[in-house]
């Protein structure tokens, strides 16, 4: 559930970029950070090792004004994808509102993709949540590479559920479909929020 602060008239959403190691989660945030005006975002906090691997998590706060007087804030997090950092992933997933699952499209990463989405399910389950209960969007990243699996196989691996998730082919390094993915998960969040709080915000008209 988003955090609603009636005093400061703020609604805060937490979106977590989840996925296997080296899949491009941090690249997503770096691109988003580079495209949003500094006046509407905070600094990108990134704790990475010397080899550019996310050690703890990346964090990017984004502010957007709501016309109805509520300031909408988005906190974007990534998790460390490496298997050993599961405790950190569980911590970052606390009170998550929406998830972007960043899959690595390369053939040799298919098993890691499956392992990562199962890990997401398990970690959500520990919070009493099922995958189908929260807004999730799939991003098939690295589509510019030559050794990528076809999208229908990625869909088969990661999206063969009763509830079909929206999916996007993306190239996080160049930014292709990065904002489209974020826009999609945000739409899901806002619709859900509007449905659950009709009295709070009668019409959602977000803007900067």
């Amino acid at each position, binding site marked *: 559930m988003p955090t609603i602060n009636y005093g400061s008239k703020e609604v805060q959403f937490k979106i977590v970029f989840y996925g296997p190691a080296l899949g491009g989660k941090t690249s997503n945030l770096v691109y988003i950070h580079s495209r949003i005006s500094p006046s509407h975002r905070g600094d990108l906090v990134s704790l990475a090792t010397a080899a550019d691997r996310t050690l703890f998590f990346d964090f990017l706060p984004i502010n957007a004004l709501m016309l109805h007087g509520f300031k909408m804030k988005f906190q974007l997090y990534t998790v460390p994808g490496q298997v050993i950092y599961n405790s950190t992933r569980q911590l970052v997933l606390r009170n998550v509102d929406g998830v972007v699952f960043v899959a690595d499209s390369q053939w040799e990463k298919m*098993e890691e993709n499956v392992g990562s989405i199962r890990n997401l399910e398990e970690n959500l389950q520990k919070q009493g949540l099922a995958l189908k209960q929260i807004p999730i969007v799939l991003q098939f990243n690295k589509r510019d590479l030559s050794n990528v699996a076809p999208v229908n196989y990625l*869909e088969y691996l990661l999206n063969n559920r009763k509830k079909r998730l929206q999916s996007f082919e993306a190239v996080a390094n160049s930014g292709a479909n990065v904002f489209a993915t974020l826009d999609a998960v945000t739409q899901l969040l806002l619709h859900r929020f509007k449905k659950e709080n009709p009295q709070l915000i009668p019409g959602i008209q977000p803007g900067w």
Partner: protein
Amino acid sequence: MPFLHWFRKPPASAPTGFEPVERIVTEPVAPAPVSPDSPVPDSHQTIAPPGPPEQPLETESEPVSEEAVTDHVAIAGSAKDAPAELATGRYLSVSIGAFYDKLPTHLRAAKTPSLTRTVQIAEEDAVIHHETNEATLPLSILSLSCPEIFTRPVEPSDDVPVTFPITAPNEAARAPGDRDDILDPEKSSHPEAQDSGTEPKAGEAARSAANEIKVRLQSILADFPHDLAPETIHSFAQTEAEISLPLDMIKAQLPNGRVAVPASTFAAGLPEDLKPLFAGIDPTAEIPIPLREIFSHLPADAIEIRKDQESDHPEEKVATPFTGPAEEDARRFAQPSAGPSPQRKTAPRKIEQLPVQANAASDKLQAIFMTDEPLDLVTTLKKVAELPGLQSCALTTTEGQKLAGNLGDPNQEKLVSGLLPDLFQRTHSVFNELSTGALEGITIYAGACHFSAFVRGQLCLSVVHDNRPFKPGVREKIQVVLNELEAMTSGAKSN
């Protein structure tokens, strides 16, 4: 197994020196550690009712009769365990996760294996307890099925019975967590597979003969496990032979993102003339089959998305703070729409050909190495690795796709072959701006290893040093070899 008799006796009248089975079975599973920072669900959130982790949230599976369970059982672990199932009436297909927690810690290998990987265990080696829905088998049997997860062979003094819960196969084939929500691909593709209690029909042999997939042996050998590879593997690495594998076995593993077959199945599918070469391999060892190769031969209808999917897209589109940048990007990247990718139901696209053919040969390479031996890609890389001061080498594309050779540890190889070409190209672009001349190669000195990389065109040759810089002439020779390989690539392309 001759020592199984003591499993089959009632526990009360089984005076063995081993720990009673009940004690092991009822050993409580350690709860997940809860730290002060553990998530506290919001009071508005829906909390799932407590229950056994493997309990599906919505039951879709049919009740399974006891006879069916007897003939076709699945072994499942806790919620965190990977699905496991009985592949046929004779073998149990067991995920490592189903029993990994039960292994004595002093016998576990340092590296945690993939818990979703399955191992095959002969059904006759296990004792099925129908009353408790559990199966028991000796630790030594497990160690034979997956020796790589043990630090050493299980000695008689270590041998203890290990017991797992068993569940119906329909449940076991699902993903953990949202198991009820995942379509069982095996079930959907083969409705007859649901009839687990039936005996094989007379025409099954003929049907299974038609139910095969042929893949190129060459592609399998490129990623053949180093510890299993016969010494002569290089001599037929460029073979055009194909291997027949059971399509059902392949399809059943596609949802895992990894396909491997037991060495016995691999050997059975080999052409007759090649079978002796692999005769010495442990029949229970796993041979990975590259997905890319499988998909270039897979029937278009082999993978199907379930047809009862419901979209979660909101019908009413609202403008979010990210809609503007998304539309800008869509225009910038000249994509027709920033919307979700369409659900494709067409056959997988044809895989691009490798830029270098493994069987390409060159007189110039023979001259470089001063040999009359015909040099193809594999033997050329072998020659490079034998240059003084080098430990190993691998040829990849600049995208990190491996073409030949190896750098030792597969995990290290993956990382290095992904990093070095990228690093080279970045450095190269910077050097171009600095007008320092073309970058010839890069060397990275790490504590335990030194790596060098050379890039020509789309090819990257990475080498591991013998803990010292290049000896005189070695670097130059590598560059000449790479130039020739690159020229062969260009020649192959133009042809």
